[in-house]
């Protein structure tokens, strides 16, 4: 216990110093278990019960591991996990709660005050420490052996490169923004169903249809890792509506549709979510992430939400066999704005 008083002095509003006496430590209150032998016994029993629950939990967990195996059905997996999890929970919670309850009710509750010592070490201790360092430097001979000093510093200075170079280099790899500008779509690329890759006949797209489209690629290309990245950029949503429902097309885009079939990039111009919630009756295309809404009948104009630009339109036509093909790639980078996009 500290005998020092720690009275507090604070400046008052009118400049006088006001002094507050140290109120001291509140009076120690004894717990029920300290004064009442019955309460003491009861607390002990509670701790015993808690640890017993843990023991039972462990036994049940071991039993469940052997007896309640997942049988391959969804319900079986659920039961097995549930029984195992609950048993392990009780096994651990029994120990934890029991230990704390024991400490709180039965172990000594003497109140102890520990004084803080000064942060600064005494002067003699500081002198000894400095002396020891100086002795060590002298002993290593680093002052005399210049080459040694050089290699130690070089080794220490060079080592972080093993971590820094791969880290910075792999970050740098992603800065190739050129890949953002182009997709797999080019003149004559066939439109195919996602995910099967069957080519799409224009006559098969009925009014009111929404078709999720990927470009036609070879089966070998589909097996490469590059396909996933390119597919993510090239996704297209194609719908067919009554040609009379279209608002007048923008200049230069009059021939970009085929008989009411119109195709837009599925990548939102806001932050790149797939915009695919097509409402057939209103011709609105809704982005699930931030509710940007595009009007398919009006060149995918933004009618609601945070997106700034319409979805890029894929110009389409049919080839000699009646399959839908791209007239050309997208005429602008798809997806959200990026630094070098310039708008």
């Amino acid at each position, binding site marked *: 216990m500290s005998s020092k008083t720690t009275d507090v002095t604070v400046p008052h509003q009118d400049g006088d110093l006001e002094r507050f006496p140290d109120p001291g430590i509140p009076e120690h209150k004894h717990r029920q278990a300290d004064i009442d032998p019955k309460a003491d016994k009861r607390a002990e029993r509670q701790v015993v019960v808690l640890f017993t629950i843990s023991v039972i939990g462990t036994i049940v967990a071991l039993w469940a591991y052997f007896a309640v195996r997942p049988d391959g059905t969804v319900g079986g997996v*659920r039961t097995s*996990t549930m029984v195992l999890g609950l048993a392990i929970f009780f096994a651990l919670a029994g120990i934890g709660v029991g230990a704390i309850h024991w400490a709180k009710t039965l172990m000594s509750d003497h109140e102890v005050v520990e004084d803080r010592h000064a942060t600064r070490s005494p002067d003699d201790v500081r002198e000894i420490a400095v002396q020891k360092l100086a002795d060590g430097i002298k002993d290593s001979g680093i002052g005399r052996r210049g080459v040694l000093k050089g290699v130690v510093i070089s080794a220490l200075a060079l080592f972080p490169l093993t971590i820094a170079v791969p880290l910075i280099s792999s970050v740098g790899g992603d800065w190739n923004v050129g890949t953002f500008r182009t997709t797999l779509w080019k003149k004559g690329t066939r439109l195919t169903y996602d995910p099967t890759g069957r080519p799409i006949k224009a006559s098969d*797209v*009925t009014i009111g249809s*929404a078709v999720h489209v990927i470009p036609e690629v070879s089966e070998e290309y589909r097996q490469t890792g590059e396909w996933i990245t390119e597919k993510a950029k090239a996704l297209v949503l194609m719908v067919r509506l009554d040609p009379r429902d279209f608002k007048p097309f923008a200049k230069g885009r009059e021939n970009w549709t085929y008989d009411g079939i119109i195709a837009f990039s599925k990548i939102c111009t806001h932050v790149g979510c797939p915009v695919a*919630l097509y409402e057939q009756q209103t011709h609105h295309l809704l982005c699930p992430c931030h509710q940007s809404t595009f009007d398919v009948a009006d060149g995918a104009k933004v009618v609601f939400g945070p997106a700034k630009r319409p979805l890029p339109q894929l110009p389409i036509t049919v080839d000699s066999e009646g399959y839908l093909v791209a007239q050309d790639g997208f005429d602008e980078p798809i997806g959200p704005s990026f630094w070098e996009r310039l708008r």
Partner: protein
Amino acid sequence: MKALAARRHHRFAPVVLLLLALLVTGGVYAVLAPSQARADSASTQDIETGKKLFQANCATCHGLDAQGTDNAPSLIGVGAAAVDFQVSTGRMPMAMDGPQAQAKPRQMTDEQTSQLAAYIASLGAGPAIPTDEQVDGSKGNPANGAQIFRTNCAMCHNAVGQGGALSQGKFAPSLERTTPRNIYQAMLTGPQSMPVFNDANITPDEKRDVIAFLEAQRHGSAGGASLGSLGPVSEGIWAWVVGLGLLIGAAVWIGAKSS
């Protein structure tokens, strides 16, 4: 043959040939084309009764001859599948106007529904009601169905078919209790906001796979409580409110002095 050869330059010869060609094509198509299930089996009696039912229950909005009005679309050519979907789920006849017609207790019996369907199917060709074989999920491949569902349906109906919000009060309903036949019909006919997924886009076999996938979701989640399968919203509320609440409670209990 001589007579025929002599007349091959007759000015009606091309017309006769064209008619013959059309007859042959039509005849071959009628024989080879897959027969439309059920719709053809409807009797004239059914069509007559269906017409009376239609005029009593539907004509106010859809017009006396189902030609459509300002309030409701024309039903000519929508097919028996569309009628069966709308009427058997109780969406039609509609009780009141709203953002969308919602499923409710059905108002027509099975017999009345099929009579209505027969009448509408008689007005113009459209998708027929699928057969039991076509909608039997146990014959489908749920893994392939999951792929089809993820690409075409999950954006609106949620990854496991729990449904989700659309714009201005419209929503994609949960598919948890939808019958296999209604799932198939919805894909085929594209009711209300839903686009059409015809047999070229999602083949009949793939439609059955989708049904198999949705039926597989009805056994519940292997992870226990799915919290509505809504993803980060319900799981986040659970973790932040219940989980953190329990942790704070435990910390307070550890810090409190025993009485």
